């Protein structure tokens, strides 16, 4: 996870951000139970910064609304992210950042699973297994250097 001076993906493709969420009258009514939906999860993580570009994961199309599933009954949140290139060495770091953001923002009852979009990365299985191993994630988050890098990615860029 060392950050190299050379960019891996020199000229990433940019994508249009999705529109602001429009609040329905039902959502603003406090008496109606408001369950988590994929749009709310998306809004929690779309502003995460890419580790190498001054762009958000939404702008790079790493995160898409349709790749997020929420199951409120079973307390499951599943997020698939798409690395910009199939050999992206930052894939684990990006996945960790998404996971940390969701662990901090969601109630602890949720089981959060973060995976690479099938077919989008050369080491898909290895990255997925590592992200699913909570013991290794816990150990990684005790590494102060790594935590600093993750916190930088999580310094949310809500502008523009």
């Amino acid at each position, binding site marked *: 996870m060392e950050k190299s001076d050379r960019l891996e993906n020199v000229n990433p493709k940019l994508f249009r951000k999705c529109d602001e969420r429009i609040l329905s009258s039902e959502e603003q009514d406090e008496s109606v139970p408001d369950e988590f939906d994929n749009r709310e999860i998306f809004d929690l993580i779309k502003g995460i910064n890419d580790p190498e570009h001054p762009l958000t994961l939404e702008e790079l199309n790493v995160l898409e609304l349709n790749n997020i599933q929420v199951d409120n009954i079973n307390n499951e949140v599943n997020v698939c992210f798409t690395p910009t290139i199939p050999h992206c060495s930052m894939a684990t770091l990006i996945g960790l950042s998404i996971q940390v953001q969701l662990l901090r923002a969601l109630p*602890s*009852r949720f*089981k959060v699973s973060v995976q690479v979009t099938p077919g989008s990365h050369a080491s898909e299985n290895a990255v997925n*297994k590592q992200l*699913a*191993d*909570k*013991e*290794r994630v*816990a*150990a990684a988050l*005790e590494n102060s250097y790594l935590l600093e890098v993750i916190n930088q990615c999580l310094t949310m860029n809500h502008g523009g």
Partner: protein
Amino acid sequence: MGRLELLQTLTGHQGRVWNVAWNPQGDILASCGEDKTIRLWTNSPSSQGDKLGNWTCRSTLVDAHQRTIRAIAWSPCGHRLASASFDSTTAIWERRQQLNTGRGADFECVATLEGHESEVKSVSWARSGRLLATCSRDRSVWIWEVENGENEELNGEFECAAVLNSHTQDVKRVAWHPERELLASASYDDTVRLYMENPSDGEWGEVAVLSSHSSTVWGLAWESNVSERASKGTRLATCSGDGTVKIWQEFGPNNEEGVAPGPDGHPAWKCICTLSGHHGGRPVYDVAWCPCTGYMATACGDDAIRVFGEAEGGDSMELSGPSIDILATQRSAHLQDVNSVCWNPKMPGLLASASDDGEVKIWMFHSD
């Protein structure tokens, strides 16, 4: 069928609790976790004659580790405790008489074992108390020799007897056989490996590879109750990120079933039973085999604790495998993942569990 009755919830740890372990006498429960402390819980029976449900924290062991304490293990005599930490060391604690405090014996850190390159994940004492095993994220398993006898005070004398590099990934768990000097290790590489000392040259080496799980093997438990069927430790239970528990059986030379021996004539280990479909596809983080009753308990990433038992009258010597039934499912046993389960070695049915929710719970299993 059966059920689990919650006797008590023990709070005090900050953050996730990774492991619980009863001492061999069954009167102290140790727990450890993210907060870098070990808590020792003892029972003070209340006047109402309630023998089981008044556990309190007697002492908190601190300052030996810089990072998460992942696992703890009692020596067979109960005078020593070992703790494995993400700070890449293993600490040895020894019971020392406290003079003038009126508190009886307490535990002091008397040695720190260094050598692993990264997080230590598990630690286990051999039956003799003479050998200790540790394993790490660095893919190795270390065997340490303890020079002092069980009844002498330790002077920090531990020597590394072997470094075993068979696994190709992070090693999650080590567990010694309940009687023999046979060690099992479980890994992120999806396998379990067994090791023994070669009597001719004194070198430790791998004697079996158990491959069948399709993801990380998190837990290991030797069968340690004596039954009519077999002596201690002829079967091993393993649990995995693939959501299953598997039972493995040892087949010695010239076994009746005609199973061919392993390499170099070592006993062969075969998976004789897979418990699948019970754990909701979630990782099973721990499995415990009760030394009193033979029941098996599992700790699962779906917050539940389950208890399994072998159907009576089943002919377990058949290669088709034993018939193991689920006896109880305690859903929402904790608010988050259950990381560890441990049966009390003296009190049949008494079970302790630890969770990411920061709590330790004490249960009684009723087989009804």
